[in-house]
């Protein structure tokens, strides 16, 4: 996504994802799903970008920026399936965003960022693998992005092992981060209109994978609820947590201050 908006002859609205629209996938359903998945990618991309200039080591800064760039690429294609990418990213109010609350959570310390990455990339990898195996409108993007997200997941896993099985301080911080974000993880498995998924299979595979990594890292799988009254999860309905507003203000400020400007 360029800031401010630019128009070229080959924007991503031209992207051909070789759709084979399934019979039960309506145009509205596809748009709703594209917005949900696109907002997940966009918001997490922005959060990861906030590490630039602040990461603990240079290599890590470059890694997080690269992951953010992959996510931004996905967001551009997904949001273009839902409308105009720049308008959607820069001109919507908070209540119109459909991302899960997990991705908007602040970076916190490095352990919080890694816990968020572990939870989200494990989900996204399984999700894209399912979508890539199908024939729906997201199959083309998913088949491409699943290969990139495999690296994101691997990156999160290796850091989880290092921090969990590291010093007393890194272990304690990683445990605290995993526990703090746990209540946001149920929302990723809520139904999304327009996505034809085996959600139960997705969730059980996610739990198995995350439990396995946490176990190897010497971390305790959090016991708090992932669903019900004490869990979080209304991002898909447009209800967001307090840190999201300031993040959006920063993300949209330039575009809103200089409408129509170009480099």
């Amino acid at each position, binding site marked *: 996504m360029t800031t401010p908006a630019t128009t070229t002859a080959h924007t991503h609205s*031209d992207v051909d994802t070789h759709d084979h629209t399934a019979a039960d996938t309506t145009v509205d359903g596809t748009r709703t799903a594209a917005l949900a998945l696109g907002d997940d990618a966009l918001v997490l991309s922005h959060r990861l970008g906030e590490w630039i200039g602040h990461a603990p080591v240079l290599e890590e800064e470059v890694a997080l920026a690269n992951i953010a760039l992959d996510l931004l690429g996905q967001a551009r294609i997904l949001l273009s399936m839902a409308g105009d990418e720049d308008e959607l990213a820069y001109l919507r109010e908070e209540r119109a965003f459909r991302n899960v609350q997990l991705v908007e959570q602040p970076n916190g310390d490095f352990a919080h960022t890694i816990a968020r990455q572990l939870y989200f990339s494990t989900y996204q990898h399984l999700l894209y693998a399912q979508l890539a195996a199908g024939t729906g409108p997201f199959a083309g993007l998913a088949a491409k992005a699943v290969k990139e997200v495999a690296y994101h997941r691997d990156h999160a896993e290796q850091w989880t092992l290092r921090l969990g099985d590291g010093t007393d301080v890194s272990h304690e911080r990683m445990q605290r981060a995993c526990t703090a974000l746990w209540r946001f993880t149920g929302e990723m498995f809520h139904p999304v209109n327009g996505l034809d998924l085996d959600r139960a299979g997705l969730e059980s595979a996610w739990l198995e994978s995350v439990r396995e990594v946490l176990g190897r890292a010497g971390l305790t799988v959090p016991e708090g609820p992932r669903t019900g009254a004490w869990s979080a999860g209304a991002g898909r309905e447009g209800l967001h947590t307090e840190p999201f507003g300031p993040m959006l203000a920063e993300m949209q400020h330039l575009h809103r201050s200089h409408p129509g400007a170009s480099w």
Partner: protein
Amino acid sequence: MVTTTTALEAELLEIAGSVPDPELPVLTLHELGVVRAVRLHGTDTVEVELTPTYTGCPAVEAMSLDIERTLHEHGMREVTVRTVLTPAWSTDDITAEGRRKLREFGIAPPRAVREHGPVPLALGPTRALHAAEASEAEPLHCPHCGSADTELLSRFSSTACKALRRCLSCREPFDHFKEL
């Protein structure tokens, strides 16, 4: 729609493919494997199918502009570059000549992608685990001295498509075009 490639289309495909990659100018877009097809409509209107290496690759726009300019110079009045995602690009699409040039340029070329996607990377939480895992993967050779004794410094490097490694024999750091 029945399409057959004409001699002119083949020539235009070759011209589009000869454009150098904006970030790795030693490689052409053909050697990188990203120019998929060229279709001629009428006598001077042409449509080019380009596939990105990574979904978020920022070089796609520069590649499109370079292709447009080059084809304009070859007499095409109207050039449209369309981004296609399917089938997804893989590092297996880099030609043998492309791999040779990468190595010469100091970048370790990607190994063949296995059936199940990216090759697992070998940086473990401890050096002992790293050594154990590395022994299972196909060795990666240092582009400078050829040694197979190299280690991963970061799975993400100067661009999304590369990982940063270090040779333990000649001690030089180098980029590795990682498998995708």
